[in-house]
């Protein structure tokens, strides 16, 4: 390295230090430290970024010290990320993303006795895994039950389920099987599949009245495309996650007529705040992520036991509606309504 390079390098280092001194505002020590594990890269990074945006929006005034770890959409990386947040960053409370990464980290959470809020956990009974686990996303039992009731109200006799293989989808199908008492056929595929024709062919042979797509949301466009091309004629129900702007855009006309269970829509104030910040409609999950940060902000810097007690007493009116937890940490009081998609919009039925 010659003299000129050293001088330039030195000037750059000094400029960085000066910029840090001028612009860096350290977070006060009395601010609650929140650790969040999110998929910011990899297969699930789209919804990970939606959740991240919801958190950042809620924390615009830096009322919580938010530390984010990217576990790269790989469940096996989640425990490592959680370990780092607990043992290195010494966070006061954890935020996890989905059922899979939460369950993978549950023993660490239990051992560390750290209050944890799952932003997108839908699996039935997941909060019973630990007294420290809460969730702002309601149990999937609600949305699945609404679809079962719909099928029963229409006097359908045969239901086919196309499921992708994962913890969350298994949970959805388990609820459906328990509540549906007539003919049912279940076809499975992996989340990596792009060709669902054989499974759809079996469904077509079965000739169902109703098809429940308990599938990974990113696969809805291709599943619906192949379903329509095969000329399968049945009513179709999906999970609530189909109602994401990006998924609806990718689906196009093939999404029309799909029955979607939907929780209460985000508040208008949240929608406009999000749109003003990011110049786009909020994706599914942004509102609950926003609420999770706001709930923690309200609790403030406390010991872990006190945080736990405060969480159990939560009564918060948020972007996703009223939030209360039962004694197991499960969110209660969230209403489900059924909608039908028409030209990328939801019409209540």
């Amino acid at each position, binding site marked *: 390295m010659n003299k000129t390079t050293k001088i330039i390098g030195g000037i750059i280092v000094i400029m960085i230090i000066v910029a840090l001194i001028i612009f860096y505002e350290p977070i006060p020590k009395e601010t609650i430290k929140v650790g969040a594990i999110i998929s910011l890269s*990899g*297969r699930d990074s789209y919804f990970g970024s939606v959740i991240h945006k919801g958190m950042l929006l809620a924390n615009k005034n830096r009322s919580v010290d938010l530390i984010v770890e990217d576990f790269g959409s790989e469940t096996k990386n989640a425990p490592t990320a959680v370990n780092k947040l607990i043992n290195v960053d010494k966070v006061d409370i954890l935020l996890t993303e989905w059922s899979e990464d939460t369950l993978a980290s549950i023993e660490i959470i239990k051992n560390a006795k750290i209050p944890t809020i799952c932003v997108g956990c839908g699996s039935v009974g997941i909060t019973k895994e630990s007294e420290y686990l809460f969730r702002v996303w309601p149990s999937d039992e609600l949305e699945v039950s609404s679809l079962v009731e719909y099928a029963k109200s229409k006097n359908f006799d045969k239901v086919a389920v196309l499921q992708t293989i994962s913890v969350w989808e298994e949970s959805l199908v388990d609820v459906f099987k328990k509540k549906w008492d007539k003919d049912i056929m279940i076809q499975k595929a992996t989340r990596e599949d792009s060709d669902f*024709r054989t499974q759809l062919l079996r469904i077509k042979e079965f000739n169902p009245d109703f098809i429940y797509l308990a599938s990974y949301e990113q696969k809805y466009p291709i599943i619906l495309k192949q379903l329509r091309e095969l000329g399968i004629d049945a009513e179709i129900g999906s999970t609530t996650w189909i109602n994401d702007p*990006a998924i609806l855009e990718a689906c196009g006309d093939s999404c029309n007529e799909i029955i979607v269970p939907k929780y209460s829509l985000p508040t208008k104030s949240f929608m406009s705040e999000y749109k003003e910040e990011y110049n786009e409609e909020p994706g599914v999950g942004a509102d609950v992520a926003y609420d999770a940060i706001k709930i923690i902000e309200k609790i403030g810097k406390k010991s872990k036991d006190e945080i736990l007690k405060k969480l159990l007493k939560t009564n918060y009116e948020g972007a996703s509606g009223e939030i209360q937890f039962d004694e197991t940490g499960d969110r209660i009081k969230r209403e489900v309504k059924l909608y039908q998609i028409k030209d990328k919009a939801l019409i209540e039925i």
Partner: protein
Amino acid sequence: MFNQLFINGLIAGAIYALVASGFSLIFFTCKFIHFAHGATIAFSGYILYFLFSSLGLNFWVSVILAIVFAAFFGFLMNIVVYKRLRKRKASNVILLIASFGLLILFESLILLLFGADVKTIGYIKIAKGVEFLGAIITPLQIVIVITSFILFVLLFFFMKKAKIGKAMRAVADNKDVAEVVGISSERIYSWSFIIGSAIAGVAAVLVSLEQNLEPMMGTHLMIKGFTAAIIGGIGNVPGAILGSFLLGFAENFGIWFLPSGYKDAIAFVILFIFLLFRAQGILGIKRDNK
């Protein structure tokens, strides 16, 4: 039902064959596994999406530009990465590792530029397919099968009759002797990347229309294409095509009788059978290791 499964296998086989033929052509000439061929497919598909859906260019102009991009992309990878490694006498293992690195690099770049959400190229209106002998096939799927067959025939005659095709065979057979008679091996490597990657561009266009776009689509297609190429005979282009159709039929008929989660298992079981009992593949030539 048999007819529908046959059609499904034919479509899957055609897609795998488009991937495997370009990859096999590059292996045939350059004698190393270019795994980043999957990145060429993925990137070209996203370029088509960018040109047609984002910029609003005419669809056919976008298709031509996407295929030209694919050819140029492959050419660039050879010139910027592989040629330099070859100059340093890097082994084929090093080239393979480099190709993995390129695949990961470009798929991450796709994620960064286009996001992780699934994308569709809304050129063809989704509608019920046409009935043919009791099976349903869409016009696009017919185009995929016909295009792939035309390409394979053209590739066959290119390798047999065209000057560059003959030169490729000469370099593949014995690079040193080819150099002695005045054939520049580096020039032929470039041509094999251009042609192989252009085929990948065609695959990208058809797969993007048929299956939608995902950042990891290149890896998934390469795994199947690579498996098919091994089954057919690595380095043997007609073999790769044959192996692809065999794989397509085996998967679709196989998961009619087995649970659908076994689809990939069927592919790898066939691969292992060939590796154990006929390692040179269906049309490959057994080489004595004496």
